[in-house]
């Protein structure tokens, strides 16, 4: 059985994953995954299609249960899934309000609204605040998908293919924001097919055969 605990890691670690294993039936996707992330680190995980990157992130955030291993994280966690998980018939503002409530920010409207306004400005989509999501372009939907993970200023961001569908400007903006977050001591775990920006990362791992290797 896996063990996952929040808030009891030693202060130098924000995420500690040890000997994680996960199988779908007879197919062993994760065999023995171990890695750590410290505050102010950006780590990247890459690998081929179907190698288990998303499964690993899903286990870390609690969407899937591991068969074995241990996950310990400290502080708040923000998660951007690979697929668009946003309410299509609600407006951008309504999505932000709904998720802000989930994060417990709804009692402090000014706090989450400031955070949301800054993020929307940064990713150049503040003009869509009152637009229903189903009228937005794919790239703008992906921006909202990502912004929802940033909204509560989490200590650890777990991002699954976060810049798929972004234009070049937004892609650069994403990495600029990631560097700012790192400077504030926040940590980021990002998964991508290919990591072009290895210079931005403190550690790059490759998931191969269910095991993480240093890339």
């Amino acid at each position, binding site marked *: 059985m896996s063990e*996952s*605990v*929040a808030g009891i890691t030693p202060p130098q670690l924000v995420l500690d994953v040890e000997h994680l294993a996960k199988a779908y039936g007879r197919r062993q996707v994760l065999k023995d995954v171990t890695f750590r992330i410290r505050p102010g680190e950006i780590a990247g995980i890459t690998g081929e299609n179907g190698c288990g990157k998303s499964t690993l992130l899903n*286990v870390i*955030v*609690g*969407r*899937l*249960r591991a068969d074995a291993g241990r*996950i310990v994280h400290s502080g708040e966690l923000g*998660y951007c*899934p690979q*697929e668009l*998980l*946003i*309410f*299509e*018939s*609600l407006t951008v503002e*309504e999505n932000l*309000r*709904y*998720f802000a*409530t*989930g*994060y*417990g920010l*709804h*009692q402090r409207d000014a706090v989450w609204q400031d955070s949301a306004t800054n993020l929307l400005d940064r990713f150049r989509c503040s003009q869509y605040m009152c637009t*229903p999501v189903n009228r937005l372009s794919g790239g703008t939907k992906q921006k909202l998908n990502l912004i*929802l993970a940033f909204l509560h200023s989490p200590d650890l961001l777990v991002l699954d293919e976060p810049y798929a569908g972004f234009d070049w400007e937004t892609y650069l903006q994403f990495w600029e924001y990631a560097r700012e977050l790192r400077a504030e001591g926040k940590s980021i775990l990002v998964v991508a097919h290919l990591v072009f920006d290895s210079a931005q990362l403190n550690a790059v791992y490759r998931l191969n055969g269910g095991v993480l290797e240093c890339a």
Partner: protein
Amino acid sequence: MRLSYLRVGMAMTARELLRSRLVLILLLVIPSLFFTIVALTTTDRLITFRLAAISEKPLIEVSERSESLVFIGTAVAGLLASYLALGLMHKQSEVNRRLVLCGYHPSELIVSKLAVLLGVIVLVGIYVGGLLPIFFRPERFALAVLGLMLAGFVYGSYGLLVGALFRRELEGILFIVLLANIDAGWLQNPVYYAGAQNQFIIRALPAYYPSQLGMIGAFTDRSAIRPLVSSLGYGLVLLLVALAVYFVRMRVRR
């Protein structure tokens, strides 16, 4: 359960529902369309039947049209409620799961949906029931409307259960349409029931108690306590099973 979370959940669920044109069209058009078809295809000839839920078993004599309208009204209320419930449970289920990962409790999400569903069921009951006096004067109007609302409640709970069990919407719609068709749309007609074999099967189906309640309210002055309590019990059991399945599906696996 946190009230502020419920308030936001209910507001967002209601907005999602109101922005679905298909749902609004179904809610407004289906009852009046079905009633029009019944009114055009039935006659005023008197028919006689017994209601299974009345212990003394008196013969009830009403027009074929009146009986058919109450019967179809029950089926419509049940079908619409179960379709809505399926949609609430099914659509955006993974987005709801993301909300749970962000801090919402599954109970807050499901209670928000349930509150909106119950509100719509009450409105549908009033709307469908409100059409009845155009065609005939129900004996006890409020009780007839209550029968329609409870048909919505029982079938709404069934829709929630189907939505929680099946991942794909098509399977869920099939399960709803098939049961609603054979149960509320056929077997619960008291004229058919009177001559049916193995009546215990019909009595075990979801629409039995609500349709009996609607018929008792529309055509008699007899006690309706038993079908009333049984409808609530039947709906609650389905609802509890649906909630249990929903919690298992939505739980965070840490």
